[in-house]
């Protein structure tokens, strides 16, 4: 006797299974968080000027300390003198340029990669759950192309036409257009998924077709746009982190984290939806409302990031899948894990993209196509003779 109050078969009790599962999942979240931090420090240190990890960390810490000091002296002089009195100083990095390079150039890019990775991977995980299809992601459903088409319109036509009327900046105009078209493509996919007799393969196919239609629109825009706008557009479509700036990052932090939080709140309903629409309804879930609001929020997050980076494929497919294989299907843990893994994958890929052929950069979109394409093939091969979902 092991002292358990019930005489249940001691082999595998549900309680211990649940606890060990939760522990494993929390460990993965912790491990992935660490991976992202380490990758960020590593990424901030390498490039045309390489810096030691100490210098990288010192550069960030020193910049933080200085800006806190400046902030306090400007707005709260009393607290500022108190702050100065603390016998704690962050030494400046040994390389005098480190601060400018790390904080001015590399960090915004690192943050953009992390935020984009999070939002695309979370959107992918949620879309897979909502449509009960393992092959859907922002990329395979045509969302990436559609959002890019919207952004391309904004770039080519410029804010002069519509944005001027609304008196908004060009950045917000690009985001709004990316979101509007991203959402349009999701509505199309949603309508198709609700039609009778649509199976999972058809859904992915229709997503691919929707993607092609919007790609054709992008090509048409390239054809009619002027030289300088064409260059902007091309940079966009290849997908890269060139759009990084502190302004973009500060805008994207709430635009990524709030949707992630809202989607995380749907985790239990997503879990129940995996039992099928009929059973989910019987469990008291408003399936249509869940599906529509979930798709809308996921699309919002993904489109906002895509507006700054251009088309980045497959990350929303890869990250959730790898996490599902490791920790299973509980969306409470799957959503954060997928987000962190997506951030890590995109950050490492972008770092590779800008250093492999340094000083020439490869668009990270290209790298993601290669890695993601291979992963997609792996999934298809693995699924043979076995249900995918």
């Amino acid at each position, binding site marked *: 006797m092991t002292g358990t109050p019930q005489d249940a078969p001691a082999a595998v*009790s*549900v*309680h211990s299974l649940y606890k060990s599962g939760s522990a494993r999942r929390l460990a993965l979240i912790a491990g992935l968080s660490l991976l992202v931090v380490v990758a960020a420090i590593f990424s901030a240190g390498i490039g045309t000027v390489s810096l030691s990890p100490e210098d990288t960390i010192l550069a960030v810490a020193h910049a933080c300390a200085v800006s806190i000091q400046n902030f306090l002296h400007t707005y709260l002089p009393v607290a500022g003198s108190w702050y100065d009195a603390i016998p704690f100083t962050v030494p400046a990095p040994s390389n005098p340029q480190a601060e400018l390079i790390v904080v001015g150039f590399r960090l915004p890019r690192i943050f953009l990669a992390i935020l984009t990775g999070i939002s695309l991977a979370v959107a992918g995980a949620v879309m897979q759950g909502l449509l009960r299809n393992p092959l859907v992601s922002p990329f395979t459903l045509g969302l990436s192309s559609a959002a890019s088409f919207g952004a391309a319109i904004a770039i080519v036509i410029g804010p002069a036409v519509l944005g001027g009327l609304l008196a908004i900046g060009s950045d917000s105009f690009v985001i709004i257009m990316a979101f509007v078209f991203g959402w349009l493509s999701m509505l199309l996919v949603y309508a198709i998924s609700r039609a009778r007799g649509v199976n999972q393969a058809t859904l992915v196919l229709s997503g691919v077709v929707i993607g092609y239609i919007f790609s054709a629109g992008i090509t048409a825009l390239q054809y009619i746009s002027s030289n300088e706008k064409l260059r902007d557009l091309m940079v966009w479509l290849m997908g890269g982190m060139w759009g990084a700036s502190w302004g973009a990052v500060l805008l994207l932090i709430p635009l990524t984290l709030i949707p992630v939080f809202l989607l995380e709140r749907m985790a239990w309903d997503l*879990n129940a939806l995996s039992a099928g629409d*009929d*059973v989910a309804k019987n*469990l*008291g879930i408003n399936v249509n409302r869940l599906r529509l609001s979930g798709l809308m929020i996921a699309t919002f997050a993904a489109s906002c990031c895509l507006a700054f980076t251009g088309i980045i494929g497959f990350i929303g497919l890869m990250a959730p899948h790898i996490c599902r294989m490791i920790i299973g299907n509980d969306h409470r843990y799957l959503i954060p894990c997928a987000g962190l893994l997506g951030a890590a994958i995109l950050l490492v890929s972008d770092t590779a993209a800008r250093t492999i052929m340094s000083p020439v950069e490869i668009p990270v979109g290209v790298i993601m196509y290669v890695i993601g394409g291979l992963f997609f093939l792996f999934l298809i091969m693995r699924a043979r003779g076995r249900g995918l979902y």
Partner: protein
Amino acid sequence: MELVLENVSKAYGAQVALDAVSFAVHPSEIVALVGPNGSGKSTLIKAIATIHATTGGTIAIDGRDVRSIEPIELAMLLGYVPQGFSYTLYSTVFETVLMGRRRYIRWSVSDEELSRVQRSLDTLEMGQHAGKFMDELSGGERQKVFIARALAQEPAIYLFDEPTSALDIRYQIEVMETMRRITREQQTSMIVAVHDLNLAYRYADVVVVLNRGKMVGCGKPCDVLTPDCIRSVYGVDSFAIENEFGKFIVPFRARLPP
């Protein structure tokens, strides 16, 4: 809880799936829905579970129309087991059963909820499979997991759509025995669509015979499941035998269409 169906009708365009079906289910009762393929058994069960809307008539639980009951409350009253399989590749058995407790879980899962999951798995002798993935199970074991999920839901009325179709004969009898015990003990009721007339005969208190959406018989198994009825509904000749174990129906010949 008493479930009353009154003139329940359902049509897909011009095609009539259910035509004025009326019967009542009382606590501790097992009602078997029998009838040939396409006779409307699944449609009726889905209509009761409010998965599909009806086009006429009323379905009421203790006098309240099911459509007026909030989905969250309805989830505590009705437990549905679907005919087909729908599960996720990376879900384990106990996670699937845990979904039956969805309405009672806010974020973290209490020990109490886990105990209920354990109990419903043990009831169906599936405890040793709790940690397995759904795709590691046989078809019959999977079906028992879905039944366990409905048990974990602890509803007042169980709605089972051919729950024993993938089970071998031993499990079929076990599941029906278990359900009869549970309905008696908990004063719950069960509506079950079955193909096996002998299962209906042995375990149901009331048999409802459906044919092309119409209710052509309703009553005690021995009154309803007669060779005449089986001939007219299924087009199959049969006879009943009686021995010390009870009365059995033996279908032996399909009648050629006239």
